[in-house]
């Protein structure tokens, strides 16, 4: 623990230092502009303090983003339309639903691919093709089509999350379900075990390390999917909507706080899976 502390802290400090310096350079043009119009010359310290405190900076300084996040989480009621927690929850609910759907769908596909030769030959190319299409191009179509048949709100966004998150699950689970070696499969054969028995007692438990690794990737992809699902539709709520509204009105601080929030959300979700993974695999003697 202690050994990790110093390097981690060093990296964090370095990131903040680079961020602050970059803010000075990127925002100085506007600071000089304002000074020129007001006909004053800026000292270095004035310049720096101006670049770190503009209303609509090109790159907001970390403390500005921090203050914005504080204001929109702690100081706002959760029910408020300006609460970042409210928006995060909107995105999170679509993320979790899409993640669950993607995990189930991906696992079922993997089982089909492992057990059915026709599926093995035919499905994988389509699965890969599906991921080569830019999600930004597909997302509006999914939303519009589903809207036309009367489905709106959470589900269309969750569908886009699912579209992104089933892929790592399929790939990981196909590998995982095939991970038992020939000897273990022969052994099952000597006991005259049925396919179902081999699946539940050997293939599925063997696939768990692969499963959890896939889930981590799927979770991150799912969050991206939910945010992307909010972008093209003029959604009024969700982290994606905050990003979009921020960019309409040049509210860079708002954009950055939504981004940081999304990153923090993804990190916590992946961390939760990591904890479950560690506990589970240790209990299974596979860590």
């Amino acid at each position, binding site marked *: 623990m202690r050994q990790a502390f110093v390097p981690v802290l060093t990296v964090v400090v370095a990131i903040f230092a680079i961020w602050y310096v970059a803010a000075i350079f990127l925002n100085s043009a506007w600071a000089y502009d304002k000074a020129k119009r007001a006909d004053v010359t800026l000292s270095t310290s004035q310049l720096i303090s101006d670049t770190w405190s503009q209303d609509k900076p090109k790159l907001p300084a970390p403390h500005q983003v921090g203050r914005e996040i504080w204001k929109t989480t702690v100081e706002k009621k959760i029910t408020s339309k300006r609460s970042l927690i409210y928006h995060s929850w909107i995105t999170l609910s679509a993320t979790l639903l899409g993640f669950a759907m993607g995990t189930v769908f991906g696992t079922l596909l993997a089982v089909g691919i492992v057990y059915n030769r026709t599926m093995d030959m035919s499905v994988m190319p389509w699965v890969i093709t599906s991921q080569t299409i830019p999600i930004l191009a597909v997302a509006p179509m999914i939303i519009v089509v589903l809207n036309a048949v009367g489905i709106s709100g959470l589900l269309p966004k969750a569908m886009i999350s699912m579209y992104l998150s089933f892929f790592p699950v399929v790939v990981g689970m196909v590998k995982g379900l095939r991970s038992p070696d020939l*000897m*273990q499969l*022969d*052994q*099952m*054969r*000597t*006991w*005259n*075990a049925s396919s179902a*028995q081999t699946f539940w*007692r*050997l293939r599925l*438990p063997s696939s768990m390390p692969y499963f959890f690794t896939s889930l981590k990737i799927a979770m991150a992809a799912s969050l991206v999917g939910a945010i992307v699902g909010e972008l093209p539709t003029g959604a009024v709520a969700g982290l994606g909507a905050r990003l979009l509204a921020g960019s309409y009105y040049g509210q860079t601080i708002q954009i950055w706080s939504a981004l940081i929030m999304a990153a923090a959300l993804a990190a916590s979700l992946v961390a939760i899976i990591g904890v479950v993974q560690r506990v589970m695999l240790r*209990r*299974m*003697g*596979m860590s």
Partner: protein
Amino acid sequence: MQNGTTEAAQSASQAPVISANNLDLTFQTNDGPVHALKGVSLDIEAGDFVSFIGPSGCGKTTFLRVMADLEQPTGGSISVNGVSPAAARQARAYGYVFQAAGLYPWRSIGRNISLPLEIMGYSKAEQQERVERVLDLVELAGFERKFPWQLSGGMQQRASIARALAFDADILLMDEPFGALDEIVRDHLNEQLLKLWARTEKTIAFVTHSIPEAVYLSTKIVVMSPRPGRITDVIESTLPKERPLDIRDSPEFLEIAHRVRDGLRAGHADE
């Protein structure tokens, strides 16, 4: 399902347990056909302990796998308990011990041993009773709740033998089960295996690389040689059934070992 084994055993009580007649097995590979077995004929009687010895590629493991219905012969015939290997496998006529213990890390030793019992549909109470009985048999009583990683390699292999004994198959097929273990552990396990064989009166087919192991354990030693895989000699052991470890220094033992070595050398000479 469980009755199938005993019925098959009874109907074939007089006939050899395993009977191979002019068995051929050719693998088609990219480098052309490989003759893993050619013209192999052998009878194994009930209660025999038969060792198969020979250099790698002589087909000893392939022969064992044919008995277990894990490989299909391309010619000749073989019967196990009077029926085809496939029927024998479906009747759970044999227990197979692989080179590696192959215990599932997520199951305790007890639950590993009850795995085939679960698959075969034994009741919970029966599973429990059998697990305790076979753990006793391999001298692992008290380790039921331990996990595989808590056991040494030798103990793991004993657990895997217990697993093969848990359902009442009267044939035990063992493919170099002690190959990965060190000499001292191996000696100990050999001694234990003999005791176990005497107590259970199983028919055992045992593949090995080691001449002393083959001579010490067997009632019958089958010497094989490669390209094509075939039987070059079958040696009936004259050693008594009761065999302390120091029997390996007796002239009788050395004589049999000598004959095995000659057989192996002869197989090599005609290459």
